[in-house]
């Protein structure tokens, strides 16, 4: 039993005591809280209020309105962080990125292949439905994208890699789909700047500081269902971007060992 393990155990007991004693003495207020904060009440009151249309966002789901309308810039930067992490993971293997694998495979048995082909369509349908209903029920861009991302990974394992190499779907298609979706996420909130509006503007706010002759606003209902203007469009773009990002990352990580050692060949000199 090393000395440093005993020291770490004592450190962890100290951490538990430091967090839990202020909680018991009332640092977070009463547990559980009795009243909501005043800013939460403002968001709940203003988000779908057809009587006071000066600050509303036309979506009855308050969490989607906060994520894409009231704090939209945070979501834009989070999308950029995700994009940079996937690009960084791809750059480590940039030599072998589009090449065909050297080991041939046949995939799993016949029953598994036929059963998986039916289930994959169901997974894609559930994911697309979650993305498109993001402004009325719980759901949205990232949730639907993560559900849809299971489908290409399962397809890559059940049908083998040679089957996918023979088809015409290469990594370059996924990268171009992803870049176009991200371009849509960046350009769609910039369009209301030509009229009297802010960036990430959902409905036109009637404040007296804007003087512009053009009046442009995103629509607030689709036939008779509240749409939330910009929120439905951004959900679709974000779902496509997340789906192609996960497909790319797993296509790189599932190469065979022989081929993945090729970018390391000249590194035995240094450390």
């Amino acid at each position, binding site marked *: 039993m090393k000395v440093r393990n005993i020291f770490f155990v004592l450190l962890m007991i100290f951490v538990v005591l430091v967090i839990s004693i202020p909680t018991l003495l009332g640092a977070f207020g009463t547990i559980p809280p009795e009243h909501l904060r005043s800013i939460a009440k403002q968001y709940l009151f203003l988000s779908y209020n057809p009587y006071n249309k000066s600050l509303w966002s036309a979506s009855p789901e308050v969490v989607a309105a906060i994520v894409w309308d009231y704090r939209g810039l945070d979501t834009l930067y989070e999308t950029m962080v995700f994009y940079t992490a996937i690009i960084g993971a791809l750059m480590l293997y940039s030599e072998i990125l589009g090449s065909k694998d050297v080991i041939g495979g046949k995939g799993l048995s016949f029953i598994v292949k036929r059963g998986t082909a039916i289930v994959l369509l169901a997974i894609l349908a559930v994911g697309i439905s*979650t993305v498109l209903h993001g402004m009325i029920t*719980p759901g949205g861009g990232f*949730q639907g994208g993560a559900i849809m*991302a299971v489908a290409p*990974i399962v397809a890559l394992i059940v049908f083998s890699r040679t089957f996918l190499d023979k088809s015409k779907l290469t990594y370059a298609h996924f990268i171009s789909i992803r870049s176009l979706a991200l371009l849509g996420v960046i350009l769609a909130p910039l369009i209301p700047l030509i009229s009297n509006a802010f960036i990430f503007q959902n409905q036109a706010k009637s404040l007296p500081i804007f003087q512009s002759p053009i009046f442009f606003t995103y629509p607030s209902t689709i036939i008779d269902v509240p749409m939330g203007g910009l929120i439905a469009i951004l959900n679709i773009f974000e779902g496509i971007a997340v789906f192609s990002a996960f497909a790319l990352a797993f296509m790189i990580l599932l190469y065979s*060992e022989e081929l993945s050692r090729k970018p390391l060949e000249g590194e035995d000199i240094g450390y």
Partner: protein
Amino acid sequence: MSTVISFIENLVFIIMGIIATTSIIFVVLAVQSKDLLKTIIFSAVQSTLYALLLFLLFAPDIVLVYVAVSVGLLPLLSILLVKKVGRYEG
């Protein structure tokens, strides 16, 4: 009517307490196991208990993200890593 509501509220709190106490056992088992495949499976069970706790806390958006990411994608990534790197620690 108000006694029925306070009875339901106490029941919900008791279920939350039982789930949170059970998840401590799985975290301790996951950290001290020597076989890395068992660690991954204990971590997936603990994520399922957390998803039930999130449902009882009235957060439906977070449940969709959490089940898709932490019970689906992360154990898959970890099993891929264990296959290439080596199954037993030490």
